[in-house]
C-alpha cells in the first residue's frame, strides 16, 4: 500500500506519521547528510563549552582549596619584616613570604642539568597562601628533605625515599624526596626559558625555610611575596602600594593572576575554547539550516499534488504544516543526538589531553547539561528557521492550485549572454549557467557553504605551518645558541674565557638577564630585559623582514608585540624599572619575535645603568655535538649555575606539545569540514537530479551518453565547488586571522603564515569529499529508467 493509500483509508494523524516514516526512509541519504552537519555543529559547541566549564570549575575549586594568591611580587632580597608592613596595607587579606630559588639538578637519567625551583615552607604550619596538595609521602622534617612536584617525580619515576643531587649556591647537596605534591601556582609548570612544560627538565621542590635560607645565605630574608586580596579590594591599588613598599628591595613590580604564567596560560586556553564555541558551531548550523531549507522545499515541490489531495481529504493546514515540520525536526533531532554524544566523547578526549599539561589534583570531564541543552535548543531553532518558509508554503497552498499541474519551469537568458564568450560556450555550459541563474540564492548559499568547508581546514591546518615558521624564526634565525646558562649571581666577564675553554664549546657570549617593569603612559608590563653585547651573533635581533639588526648602542630594542602592548613606536620613551630605579630609555629598534615578549639593551649600556661594572648573569653557548656529554658534565659540576636551557629540548617539547594538543582539534575540524562538503554536495546533487531528472532522461532519449548527461548535472556542482575554492581560501585566511588574534598571548604571537601546503590540503579535502559524495548520485543517474523518467510530471 502506498503512503497515500494508507492515508485515504485512515485520515488519522497516525497515517501522516506513517507517511513521515516512509518519506524519511526514502530520503535517508539526504537526511543523514543534513543530520551529520547538524551533529558537527552541536558536537563542537558541546565539546567547547563543556570542557570550558569543567576546566574553569576545576581551576577555581582548586585555587580556593589551596588558597592561590591574587597578587605576586619578587624582590632581590628583603627582610622578613616587610611582611608586617604589607599585611597592614588596605585591601590585603593575607600575605605569604617565601624564599624561591632556581638551582641546577644533577640527574642520572639526563645528560644536561635540569632546573629545580626551590620554594621555602613556613617555619611552622601550612602556607597561608599557595598551599600544595600532598599526593604521597609527608612534609620535610629535616634540612635535606624535600617535597617534589608530581609531574617532575612522574617524569623521572621518583617516589618518596628517592634521592637527587642539587647544586645549591656552589654546594652539591644530596636531597631526599619525602613527599610528592601539586601546587596551584604550577598547574602549567613552565621553567626558565621554557615555552611549554618539559616535566623532565623542570621541577618544583618545597623545602624548609631554614634549610633554604641557610643554603643561600638568606637568613631573616625573603625574595618572594604573595598576597590575597580582600573581597572588595582593587587589585591595581594593592599592586601600586606593594610596588612602593618593595621598590627599595629591587622589585621590578608586583603583578596579578592575569600575568602569573600558569593562570595566564590556563585562561588563554579557556578563551580559545570560548572562541571555538562561538565561531565554529554557527558555521555548521548555518549550512545545516540551508540544506534543510532546500531539501524540504524540493519535497514540497514533488509532493504538491499529495498536499492538495490530503487537504481535499480533510487534513487541516496545521496538520500538514506539522507533518513537514516533523520531517525537519526528526533530521535535526537525529543530528542533535549524535552531536551531543560526539561532543561528550570529544570533550573527554580533549580533557584527557589537557590533563597531560595542566596538573590538577583531579581534572574530570563533566558533561555540562546547560551547554548541551542550549546547543540542542539552538540547533532546533536554527533548523526551524531554515524551514519556516517552506512550512508556510504548505499551510498556505490552496487545494485547487496544489492539484493543478505546476507552472512550467521558467528560464531566462542570463545577463551577458550576447557576449561573444557566452555565445562560444556549448549547450551544457549554457544549461548550467541558466539553471544557476534561475535560483541565484540557492547557488550562492551552496557556494558559501562549500567555501566555509574549505575555510575551516585552511584556518586550522595552517597552525602546523605557522608553528614551524615560529620555531624557524625564533630558534633558527634569532636564537642561534645551543644552551643558555644563567648564573645564581652575576659573574665578571672573565667567566666567558673560562667557559670558552670547557670541552665542546664553539662560541660563547655573555648576557645580562633581569626582570624589569616597562611603563609607557598608562601601559605597563613585567618582562625580562636581556643585555646582549653589541657584536652578538648567537642572539640576533631581526626586523620584520627577518634581516638581522645591529644592537642599538643606546636605547631599547622591543619585540613588536611588546611595543604594541605598550603602545609605543620607534623613538618613544619607555620607563624601565631596574632594580628599584626608574630609567627612561627610547625605543631604538623594533624586532620580530613570535615567542615571548622581547626587550633588549646593549650589555655594557645595561651594566652602566646598573652601575655594577663589567658583569654578566648568564652565557649563550654554541657547542659541538661530539663533546656534548663532556660539556654537560662540566655544567653539572659548575657551582654558580642556577638554570640551564637546552634549545633542542625546548624546541622538541614545543613541537610535541603542539602536535598533541593540535592534532585532535585540527583532525576533527578537518573531518567536520569534509563531512560538511559531503553533505552539501550530496544534497545539492540529489536535489538537482530530482528537479532535472526528466530533462536529463530526455537527453538520454535524444542519444546523449550517460557521461554527457552527467556533465550537465555535475558540471553545475563542479562549477559551484570550483568557484567556492578560491573564496574558501580567502575566507580561510580571514578565519585564520580571527583565530590568530584569539591565540595571541604574552607567550606566543602566532604568525598568519598560510602556505601552499595548507591551501593544497584544504582544497584536496573538499574536492575529494565532493567527488566521493557525487559518486552515489552518478550511479543513480547511470541507472535512470529513461521511460519512467519521461513519464514523470515535473
Amino acid at each position: 500500500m502506498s503512503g497515500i493509500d494508507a492515508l485515504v483509508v485512515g485520515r488519522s494523524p497516525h497515517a501522516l506519521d506513517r507517511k513521515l516514516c516512509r518519506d524519511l526512509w526514502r530520503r535517508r541519504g539526504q537526511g543523514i547528510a543534513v543530520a551529520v552537519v547538524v551533529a558537527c555543529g552541536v558536537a563542537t559547541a558541546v565539546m567547547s563549552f563543556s570542557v570550558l566549564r569543567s576546566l574553569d570549575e576545576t581551576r577555581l575549586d582548586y585555587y580556593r582549596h589551596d588558597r592561590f594568591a591574587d597578587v605576586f611580587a619578587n624582590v632581590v632580597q628583603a627582610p622578613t619584616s616587610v611582611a608586617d608592613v604589607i599585611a597592614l596595607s588596605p585591601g590585603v587579606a593575607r600575605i605569604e613570604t617565601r624564599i624561591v630559588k632556581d638551582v641546577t639538578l644533577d640527574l642520572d637519567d639526563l645528560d644536561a642539568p635540569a632546573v629545580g625551583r626551590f620554594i621555602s615552607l613556613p617555619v611552622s604550619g601550612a602556607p597561608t597562601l599557595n598551599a600544595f596538595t600532598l599526593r604521597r609521602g609527608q612534609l620535610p622534617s629535616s634540612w635535606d628533605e624535600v617535597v617534589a612536584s608530581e609531574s617532575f617525580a612522574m617524569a623521572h619515576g621518583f617516589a618518596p625515599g628517592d634521592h637527587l643531587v642539587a647544586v645549591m649556591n656552589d654546594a652539591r647537596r644530596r636531597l631526599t624526596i619525602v613527599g610528592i605534591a601539586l601546587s596551584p601556582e604550577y598547574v602549567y609548570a613552565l621553567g626558565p626559558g621554557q615555552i611549554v612544560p618539559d616535566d623532565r627538565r623542570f621541577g618544583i621542590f618545597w623545602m624548609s625555610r631554614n634549610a633554604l635560607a641557610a643554603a643561600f645565605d638568606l637568613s631573616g630574608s625573603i625574595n618572594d611575596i604573595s598576597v590575597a586580596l580582600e573581597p572588595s579590594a582593587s587589585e591595581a591599588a594593592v599592586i601600586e602600594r606593594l610596588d612602593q613598599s618593595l621598590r627599595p628591595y629591587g622589585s621590578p613590580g608586583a603583578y596579578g593572576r592575569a600575568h602569573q604564567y600558569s593562570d595566564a596560560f590556563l585562561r588563554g586556553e579557556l578563551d580559545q575554547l570560548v572562541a571555538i564555541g562561538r565561531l565554529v558551531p554557527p558555521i555548521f548550523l548555518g549550512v545545516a539550516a540551508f540544506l534543510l531549507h532546500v531539501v524540504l522545499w524540493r519535497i514540497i515541490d514533488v509532493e504538491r499534488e499529495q498536499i492538495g489531495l490530503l487537504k481535499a481529504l480533510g487534513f487541516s493546514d496545521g496538520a500538514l504544516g506539522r507533518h513537514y515540520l516533523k520531517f525537519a525536526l526528526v533530521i535535526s533531532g537525529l543530528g542533535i543526538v549524535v552531536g551531543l554524544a560526539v561532543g561528550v566523547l570529544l570533550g573527554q578526549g580533549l580533557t584527557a589531553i589537557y590533563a597531560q599539561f595542566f596538573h590538577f589534583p583531579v581534572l574530570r570531564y563533566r558533561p555540562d547539561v546547560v551547554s548541551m541543552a542550549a546547543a540542542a535548543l539552538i540547533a532546533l531553532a536554527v533548523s526551524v528557521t531554515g524551514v519556516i518558509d517552506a512550512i508556510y508554503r504548505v499551510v498556505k497552498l490552496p487545494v485547487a492550485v496544489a492539484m493543478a499541474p505546476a507552472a512550467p519551469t521558467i528560464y531566462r537568458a542570463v545577463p551577458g549572454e550576447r557576449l561573444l564568450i557566452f555565445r562560444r560556450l556549448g549547450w551544457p555550459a549554457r544549461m548550467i549557467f541558466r539553471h544557476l541563474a534561475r535560483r541565484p540564492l540557492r547557488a550562492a548559499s551552496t557556494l558559501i557553504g562549500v567555501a566555509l568547508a574549505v575555510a575551516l581546514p585552511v584556518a586550522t591546518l595552517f597552525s602546523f605551518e605557522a608553528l614551524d615558521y615560529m620555531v624557524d624564526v625564533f630558534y633558527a634565525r634569532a636564537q642561534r645558541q645551543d644552551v643558555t646558562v644563567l648564573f645564581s649571581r652575576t659573574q665578571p666577564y672573565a667567566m666567558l674565557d673560562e667557559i670558552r675553554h670547557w670541552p665542546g664549546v664553539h662560541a660563547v657570549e655573555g648576557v645580562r638577564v633581569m626582570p624589569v617593569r616597562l611603563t609607557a603612559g598608562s601601559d605597563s608590563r613585567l618582562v625580562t630585559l636581556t643585555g646582549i653585547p653589541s657584536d652578538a651573533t648567537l642572539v640576533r635581533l631581526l626586523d620584520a623582514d627577518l634581516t638581522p639588526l645591529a644592537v642599538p648602542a643606546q636605547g631599547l630594542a622591543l619585540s613588536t608585540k611588546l611595543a604594541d602592548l605598550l603602545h609605543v613606536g620607534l623613538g618613544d620613551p619607555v620607563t624601565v624599572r631596574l632594580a628599584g630605579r626608574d630609567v627612561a630609555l627610547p625605543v631604538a629598534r623594533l624586532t620580530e619575535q613570535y615567542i615571548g615578549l622581547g626587550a633588549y639593551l646593549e650589555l655594557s649600556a645595561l651594566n652602566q645603568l646598573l652601575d655594577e661594572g663589567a658583569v654578566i648573569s648568564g652565557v649563550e653557548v654554541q657547542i659541538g655535538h661530539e663533546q656534548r656529554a663532556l660539556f654537560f658534565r662540566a655544567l653539572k659540576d659548575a657551582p654558580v649555575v642556577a638554570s640551564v636551557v637546552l634549545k633542542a629540548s625546548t624546541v622538541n617539547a614545543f613541537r610535541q606539545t603542539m602536535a598533541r594538543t593540535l592534532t585532535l582539534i585540527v583532525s576533527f575540524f578537518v573531518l567536520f569540514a569534509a563531512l560538511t562538503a559531503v553533505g552539501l554536495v550530496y544534497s545539492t546533487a540529489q536535489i538537482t537530479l530530482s528537479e532535472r531528472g526528466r530533462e536529463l532522461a530526455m537527453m538520454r532519449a535524444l542519444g546523449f551518453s550517460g557521461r554527457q548527461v552527467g556533465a550537465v548535472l555535475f558540471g553545475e556542482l563542479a562549477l559551484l565547488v570550483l568557484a567556492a575554492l578560491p573564496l574558501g581560501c580567502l575566507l580561510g585566511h580571514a578565519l585564520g586571522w580571527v583565530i590568530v588574534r584569539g591565540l595571541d598571548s604574552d607567550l606566543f604571537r602566532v604568525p598568519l603564515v598560510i602556505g601552499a601546503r595548507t591551501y593544497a590540503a584544504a582544497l584536496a579535502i573538499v574536492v575529494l569529499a565532493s567527488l566521493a559524495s557525487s559518486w552515489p548520485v552518478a550511479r543513480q543517474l547511470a541507472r535512470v529508467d529513461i521511460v519512467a523518467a519521461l513519464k514523470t510530471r515535473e
Partner: protein
Amino acid sequence: MKTASAPALRQDILVARGVTKTYRTGAVEIQALRGIDLEFHPRELVVLLGPSGSGKSTLLNLLGGLDRASRGQILFGEADLATLDDRALTRYRRETIGFVFQSYNLLPSLTARENVALVTEDAPQALAPEAALELVGLFDRKDHFPAELSGGEQQRVAVARAIARRPPVLLCDEPTGALDSKTGVVVLEAIDRINRDFGTFAILVTHNVAIAEMADRVVAIADGAITSVRSNTHRCPASTLSW
C-alpha cells in the same frame, strides 16, 4: 495474430519478431506486449492505433531503443537491438531515431534554436537549426525559451528537433495528445511534410482514430497484441483532418 506483409522488393527498415515485454512490480507481472511481429518499410508513415494501456507506446519505446524487449528481436538492418550494449544503443538513438513525445520534453533551459542545435552540432548532414524551425513554421520564435511558447509551438520545436538530424526513423508518441484539434493538426502537418518531403520513415502512436487517415498503414493494437493491420489506399493530407 496478424503479421504485416511487406512488399517483396523493399528492404524493411525496422522489424519486430516475437517481441514480448513484461513488467514486474513486486509480485505482480504485467505483460505489456505479447509476441509482436511487424515489419516497417522505408518512407512509409505508420499509425499505431490503440486505447490507453494497449502497449503501443511500449512498442514505440522498444523500437526507439529506450527500453529492451523481454523476449523476441527488434532488427534495424542487420543489428538486433537486444544485443547492443548501452553505448551502442545510445548511438542508435542519436543517429537513427528522432523522437517526438506527448509532453514535448524540451529542455527548459535552452531556447528553441538551442534545443534543435542540441542534436545537430555533431552531424554534418543535419539541417541548420534555423532551417528545421522554418520547416515547422517557427523561425521567428527561435530565441524563445520553452516556457515562452504555447503547447503547439513547443511540440513543433520538438518535431523540428526530431528531424533536424535527418534521422532515418521518426517516432512520435501521441504528439497531439496534449493539444487542441487545431494546434494538433499544425503539428501533424509538420510530421506529414517531413515524411513526404524527406522520405523519413515515421511511426505515429495515437488513440485518435481520425489521425489514422494520414497513414500509409494503420496497425491496431489492443492488450499488447496486434489486432489488425490495414493499408490506406489514399493518404489524407494532415490539413484535412479534424476531431
